[in-house]
């Protein structure tokens, strides 16, 4: 029972991510795209964690942790580039 519900929630998260991809494609400014990519990052982290529980391969939790940190640094670099015109 719990596996079925987890799979259905994964499918729902994938549908949500596809809607966010539409916003990232159609957003009028750059910052709309940044916001949409942030939402997609959170959804991907949730999908990784749910699959880590479904497969009982709990080492994927570390993968999700590294993914969160990498996405944070990436978004930070994009925002610094937009504000100052250079990263370093």
């Amino acid at each position: 029972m719990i596996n079925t519900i987890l799979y259905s929630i994964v499918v729902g998260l994938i549908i949500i991510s596809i809607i966010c991809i539409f916003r990232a494609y159609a957003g009028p400014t750059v910052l709309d795209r940044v916001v949409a990519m942030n939402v997609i990052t959170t959804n991907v982290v949730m999908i990784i964690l749910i699959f880590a529980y479904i497969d009982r391969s709990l080492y994927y939790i570390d993968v999700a942790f590294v993914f969160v940190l990498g996405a944070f640094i990436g978004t930070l670099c994009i925002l610094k580039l937009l504000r100052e015109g250079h990263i370093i």
Partner: protein
Amino acid sequence: MSVLILEYIAIVFLFGGFFFLLVGVVGLLRLPDVYTRMHAMGKCDTLGAGLILVALMLLIWDVTNITKLVLILSMIATINPIITHLIAKTAYNRGTPMAEGSYLINDYVASQRRRRRARVEEIKKGDENDK
């Protein structure tokens, strides 16, 4: 028996988290402006991710992995507001237009610009007086 109770509580948390993620995305799709879209995203996303993480903690129920999940939860709960704040600051500094009908009560950057302009004019006047 206790495992079944934990699973039921976890199912409630899972659907709550999915509901909040869905509400955030609906706001991202429907709202008219960068700032309002960010307002929908920043809160609903953090809360939805937190609820799903609590549900996974109840399902996994193991000390080491619960510690890792608490770490991920604290990282998301600090990173998401930081990113939202920076996006808002960047949009404001770039002069991204707001939706029609909205206004600012206390415009900090405009007041700073006004003060700087007044100071420049004072310096120019001082130069003319010296001449």
